[in-house]
């Protein structure tokens, strides 16, 4: 597929929206069935095994190494200074390991071959309406250093396609491929590469047209003018695109969310992205309280209960609850430090703490203003309130001084 043809395909899917995007509409109407079809097709791609090794355009060469170290600013003499290299552990000039992928980049007009698993996975998900892409992870292992004159070839296999996942960018599937670089029969480097293929959300804000964007974030990016991202994806089969970095601006991308706001820039976008709680008759008092700056605990007679439920622990269907307002002080009962994946509205890493309140119940919330390394069980904290918008305030914690 040429880059131009690919672009045209993606444009139609994105700019015409759901009305003309049959695959996407189908996916929405029968999500389980569409998901199964993607999983089955993914298994076929995986079972097809590695693609035929594709040789790099050029052998490992000094000119490209020189360009690379000049641009990156890497002054390590083993790459460019023959004398220093001879005296080093290498005994001769070597290429920077991080250039492994560079040798087999397909260049300005490159096209992935039809058996390339990333191309097949991209086409599969494009057809299902997941037309945009961001790269999320790259893990490269170098078995040995390459020397000028060696000629590498790359072969890729699909590890898996996992989804559908709800992410900050829209619903999507994570595609993981594994690439091995060979010199002859010898594997010299390997890479696990993960991208998110996602369905761009429909425009939420007014005054911004999605018509011109065919990848990346749409609504949220437009509302703040901040973010952005990625593009790239649409050209995924053409090689370079799959190496795009991206992210959706300030609030990252991610796989799930506890829903919360980090504050600062992009607030409106974050509020729009936060995963909102399901407010029911049983817990409405709790969310109402947070809006008013109160941490409310459900009470059934003498018994406190959190999270609130529809009946007391003894199952008495005739009982009616009320609530008490917590003092807001407690200690960390358990916690985790969230490093990955990114969560809408969060700076990573952040701390999620289960706090045992002085009243005896335990409550979850983000713990702010503390170095994750300093958090420990038993740490004294007090309540704070993360106001997201007029409707929603989330419980949070800060260290008690």
């Amino acid at each position, binding site marked *: 597929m040429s880059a131009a043809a690919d672009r045209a395909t993606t444009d139609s899917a994105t700019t015409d929206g759901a009305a003309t995007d049959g695959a996407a509409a189908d996916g929405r109407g029968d999500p389980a069935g569409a998901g199964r079809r993607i999983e089955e097709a993914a298994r076929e791609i995986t079972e097809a095994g590695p693609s035929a090794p594709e040789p790099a355009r050029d052998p490992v060469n000094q000119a490209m190494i020189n360009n690379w170290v000049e641009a990156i600013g890497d002054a390590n003499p083993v790459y460019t200074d023959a004398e*220093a290299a001879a005296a080093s552990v290498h005994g001769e000039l070597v290429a920077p*390991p*991080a250039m492994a992928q560079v040798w087999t980049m397909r260049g300005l007009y490159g096209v992935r071959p039809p058996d390339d698993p990333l191309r097949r996975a991209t086409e599969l998900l494009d057809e299902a309406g997941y037309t945009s892409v961001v790269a999320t992870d790259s893990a490269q292992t*170098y078995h040995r250093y390459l020397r000028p004159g060696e000629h590498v070839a790359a072969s890729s296999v699909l590890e898996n396609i996992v989804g559908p996942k709800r992410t900050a960018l829209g619903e999507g599937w994570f595609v993981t491929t594994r690439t091995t670089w060979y010199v002859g029969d010898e594997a010299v480097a390997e890479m696990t590469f993960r991208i998110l293929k996602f369905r761009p959300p429909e425009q939420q804000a007014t005054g911004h047209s999605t018509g011109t964007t065919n990848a990346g974030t749409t609504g949220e990016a437009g509302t703040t003018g901040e973010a952005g*991202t990625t593009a790239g994806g649409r050209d995924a089969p053409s090689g370079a*695109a799959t190496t795009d970095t991206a992210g959706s601006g300030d609030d990252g991308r991610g796989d799930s969310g506890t829903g919360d706001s980090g504050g600062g820039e992009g607030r409106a976008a974050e509020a729009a992205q936060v995963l909102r709680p399901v407010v029911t008759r049983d817990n409405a008092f709790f969310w109402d309280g947070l809006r008013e700056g109160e941490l409310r605990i459900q009470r059934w007679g003498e018994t406190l209960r959190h999270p609130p439920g529809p009946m007391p622990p003894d199952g008495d269907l005739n009982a009616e609850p009320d609530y008490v307002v917590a003092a807001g002080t407690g200690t960390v009962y358990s916690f985790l430090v969230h490093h990955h994946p990114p969560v809408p509205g969060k700076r990573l890493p952040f701390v999620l703490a289960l706090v045992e309140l002085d009243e005896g119940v335990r409550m979850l919330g983000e713990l702010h203003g503390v170095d994750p390394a300093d958090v420990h069980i038993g740490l004294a904290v007090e309540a704070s309130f993360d106001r997201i918008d007029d409707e929603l305030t989330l419980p949070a914690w800060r260290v008690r001084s």
Partner: protein
Amino acid sequence: MTITVGTELPPLTVEVTPTFVVATALATRDFQDVHHDRDAAVTRGSRDIFLNILTDTGLVQRFVTDWAGPDALVRSVDLRLGVPCYAGDELTFTGSVAEVDGHDVTVSVSGTDSLGQHVSATVRIEVAA
């Protein structure tokens, strides 16, 4: 050099000029327009052109070998992307030694820009005897 767990690497700050974004994209043979054509990047919803992932891998490697020296062997670079790094920003790498097992040293690296964490990485190196 004595390497122990917790040893901090000297920070590295990179001025991410438009020239830097373009030069590194082309040196890594990444011709995506979002790395060299600002109008195209803006049209696609980005604020500006931004760094590509191959450059992140290269910068992380450089950051670690600047500290570890030319005889350190880089065995792996494992990285995760966060917020974009746009032209005009400043990217600062910090890192510390997470694990030492004989000659094998694992370094944790973080690259932050004005939007937050752009990249987090784990680099395994083998240091000279």
